[in-house]
């Protein structure tokens, strides 16, 4: 069998295309399910899209689900109890229109809490999740003052009954981890988003902001959304609709 020049070049081109395409597909495939020994990368940026028009007044299932998932227990002292999500009620004074929304750590791309941390305990993971390394945290609470969203809590009292995946202890600051243990497990959702879905509201959507094919990216691309305090240019990972 003999092949002419054109056929040869055609075959070569196809081979090049196949090798170029296959690693690409492989990358995406790996991105979907990261193995436990692989470090997180900036190929992803995890975030939430919260539609406050779907958030029901009086419903706090996201708050309770977060507490259950992360073993947050009340000491009966609301002023000092840890709070990873809280429900905020907004009222338009002119029209009287009331709406509620869940507010948690906004997982900023430029987090002020990280800027002010004197020990490096407050940090942003490569995939955009802002966390506190409680091994390094000295409990100075600078980050709590720096956060424009009041998203962080200081643990004032001895904690018991922690979950194995969510260590918590006295003298450190903590906040929403975007259910980092679930993210690392590849669950593709957070406790609050699951609870909201279960309640039938579907106000919270979790996803990868860097993946154009994810539902969150599609919705962000096609519908209007806002960042809270966008004037601070923090580029939040949690976006809102309907406010």
């Amino acid at each position, binding site marked *: 069998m003999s092949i002419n020049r054109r056929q040869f070049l055609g075959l070569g081109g196809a081979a090049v295309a196949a090798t170029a395409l296959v690693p690409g597909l492989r990358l995406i495939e790996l991105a979907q399910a990261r193995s436990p020994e692989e470090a997180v990368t900036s190929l992803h940026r995890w975030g939430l899209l919260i539609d406050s028009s779907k958030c029901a007044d009086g419903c706090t299932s996201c708050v309770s689900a977060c507490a259950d998932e992360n073993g947050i227990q009340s000491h009966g002292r609301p002023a000092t109890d840890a709070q990873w999500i809280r429900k905020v009620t907004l009222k338009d004074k002119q029209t009287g229109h009331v709406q509620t929304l869940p507010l948690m750590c906004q997982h900023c791309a430029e987090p002020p809490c990280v800027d002010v941390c004197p020990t490096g305990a407050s940090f942003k993971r490569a995939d955009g999740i802002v966390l506190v390394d409680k091994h390094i945290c000295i409990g100075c609470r600078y980050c709590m003052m720096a956060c424009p969203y009041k998203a962080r809590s200081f643990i004032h009292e001895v904690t018991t009954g922690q979950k*194995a995946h969510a260590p918590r202890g*006295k003298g450190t600051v903590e906040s929403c981890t975007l259910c980092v243990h679930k993210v690392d497990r590849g669950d593709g959702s957070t406790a609050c988003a699951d609870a909201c879905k279960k309640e039938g509201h579907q106000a919270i959507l979790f996803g990868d902001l860097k993946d154009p094919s994810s539902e969150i990216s599609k919705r962000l691309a096609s519908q209007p959304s806002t960042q809270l305090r966008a004037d601070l240019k923090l580029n939040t990972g949690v976006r809102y609709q309907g406010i």
Partner: protein
Amino acid sequence: MRTVNLHRTLTGFMLAAGLILASSSSLAHEKEGHATGVSGRVPMPVHSVNADKGDKCVRPEEVMRRDHMKFILHQRDKTMHEGIRTTQYSLKNCVDCHADAKTGSVLGKDGFCESCHAYAAVKLDCFECHSASREAATAAIPAASPVRAKGSESAKGKKP
């Protein structure tokens, strides 16, 4: 020079004798401790391993005794900052294997971690934040009073 050498030899001999004495007494001590659970003065550490997890640790025992904190510390930073959650050196893995069969915990008088740390008089900080109980055991313990935001009761009441 000669006197120095003699001195050295003598010291060496005494040291060796001391070591032999110490090791033999510690052996006796260990035997006694294992038999009764307590020695004359300090309770001996309890060496509990979850039988269905096998009888081999992730590294040889003598390595683990000396260096377990190094492995845990290294793993800690990998997990916290890079999201690497391999189980080999994870604290969770330690707890899963070594938690006491009765209490499901590595703490307490018979707890694997606490009994040895008490014996060696080394402060154990891990479990001020981390769960000291085996995962299944933790799940079985009902949460004392999980946080409920205002209005959650009324919201719950609405459901059938």
